[in-house]
């Protein structure tokens, strides 16, 4: 590999932030699936998973923004500003950079709708959030095909690892949906699960006279 000089710095910056961006986006998708299925991470309560999903999303956006900005500024290949958001108009690798633009547009839609979520109907927000399942594979193909970085060595292992992890999370989501607790029983199930933590527990027993029964 050649040394980093003032002419190659932007190019390296773009590639590095691209790789880290992909890694973070994979993490965001996995955390999003965990949030959706009320999944837990060791040592974290489930609401902390939601917070993590949000924070990592914003971090990923930061890396993707730097990745895109450095790619455009970098004089080594000329990428028009329009090609950043309009797919398949780039003079350089139109297809693979076009996929990047598609992914960027989808991610922008996800972030914007989440930031203004309080003003949207749940259905609209949810519908747009499903686009995450399109944004991630498109970003993966863009990353893999745009440059040679990810096709060998440790980066290849990283790419395969990300793919397996996201695919695994998706399969887990489907399985988890299939065995989900019916809505009306959810609170009772949590109550029963937490009861053994309570030493005295007398008040938590369902048979207590005059008290509501969990059944």
């Amino acid at each position: 590999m050649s040394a980093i000089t003032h002419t190659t710095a932007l190019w390296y910056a773009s590639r590095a932030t691209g790789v880290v961006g992909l890694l973070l986006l994979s993490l965001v998708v996995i955390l999003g699936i965990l949030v959706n299925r009320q999944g837990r991470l060791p040592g974290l309560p489930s609401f902390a998973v939601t917070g993590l999903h949000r924070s990592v999303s914003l971090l990923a956006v930061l890396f993707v923004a730097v990745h895109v900005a450095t790619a455009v500024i970098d004089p080594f290949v000329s990428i028009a500003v329009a090609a950043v958001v309009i797919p398949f108009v780039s003079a350089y690798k139109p297809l693979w950079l076009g996929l990047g633009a598609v992914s960027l547009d989808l991610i922008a839609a996800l972030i914007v709708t989440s930031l203004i979520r309080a003003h949207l109907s749940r259905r609209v927000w949810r519908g747009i959030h499903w686009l995450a399942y399109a944004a991630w594979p498109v970003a993966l193909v863009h990353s893999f095909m745009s440059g040679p970085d990810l096709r060998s060595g440790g980066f290849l292992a990283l790419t395969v690892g990300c793919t397996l992890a996201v695919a695994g999370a998706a399969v887990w989501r489907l399985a988890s949906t299939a065995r989900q607790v019916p809505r009306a029983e959810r609170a009772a199930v949590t109550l029963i699960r937490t009861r053994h933590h309570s030493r005295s527990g007398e008040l938590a027993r369902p048979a207590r006279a005059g008290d509501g029964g969990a059944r």
Partner: protein
Amino acid sequence: MTRGATLPRPGPGQRPAAEGTLPGGRRGLPRLMPAEPVPIGLQAHLERFGPPPYRGAPRRLIGELEAAGLTGRGGAAFPTHRKLAAMATGRGPAPVVIGNGAEGEPASNKDKSLLWFSPHLVLDGLQLAAGAVGSPTVGLYVHRNSQLYDRLVAAIAERAAAGLDAAGVELIDAPPRFLAGEESALASRASGGLALPRFKPPRASQRGVAGRRTLVQNVETLAHLALIARYGPGWFRSVGTPDEPGSMLATLHQADGQMGVVETTLGTPIAELLRLPAQAVLAGGYHGAWLPGEQAEALPLANTALRPLGAAVGAGVLAALPADRCGLAETARVVRYLALESAGQCGPCFNGLPRMASALAELAGPRPAPQAQADLERWSGLVAGRGACHHPDGTVRLVRSALRVFAAEIDRHAHGYCTGTSSRPFLPLPAEAAIDDEDWR
């Protein structure tokens, strides 16, 4: 004053509790309730009030409601005229108007009592509100399978036969759930679905029953509206305080176990309503807050006084905790009930509330695990504001007030002592929880 029907649950064959259990003597009450605890039929209603005073110009009633300062009596105390004005001026198909008589709060009995004793005042208010917002579709949302339900069917039929109503009233079944009366749950149930709270937006006022704009008003608010339409804002404001005018219905739970519904004025000292001293006073029901007994003695039943203390008038529930009960044990029972009434839709609610209930049960026991209180405080911060409806927020309000007011009791439990010498439950709770989706229908 606080005259009015003082009664247990409404129902034929049940004699109301003795009158005169409350001190006082202010003119002009009761307004909504009959002076004698006898239900007012259509004949007596028309003799007393005359037919509903329909207006040519619907805006006039809205202006009068604004001048009267009527606020919603379902708990949120939102200005009634603003809801009606938004509905009357909004675009799109004609709105739907629903009277909300689903009183899911187990400690409250005032809406059932009002519908039992003065159904025609509520039905008048429903018609007048519908007229004011130009709605031809009117519903009344009440718990099914009760004698009250049958009486309302008969009252509506009687009015239809007399040709009193401009719009036909449809009775809508409310399931016996704590959250059934939540506005979006009502809209969902009235559309034929389950009475589950929905995420907002859209609010029911934007897209409610069958996708139409929907005005939801508590039945007591409608009864006040029917009287303001007849006697005007000046009359309405002749009782109460300038900030919170008019009368209101309150459900009182005395420390001796006696329960009653009274009509009182906003601003009435709590000490005139409850027989104090008491160990503590629960204000605003199960989404309300505990107040220390001696503090409650000095307070009026008014939001201006209660809100700075983290409490509110809410739907007018006041309960005096007897000296021989443990406030922590009572709160633990209630929070467990509230947790099981979660609709199971939002993670913070159906995961957080049962955990809080368990931790509170731990605190209510002897020598609780030391981390129980810290857990409760942490979870309170994590579930508040995180649901589709205000169920987590209301539950957190109750829990936080209990930790505050019963701090000395927590200390006693840590040393193996407890104030409670009676294990008999005090605050009323229903026996049943939902077991499947059908229990929300």
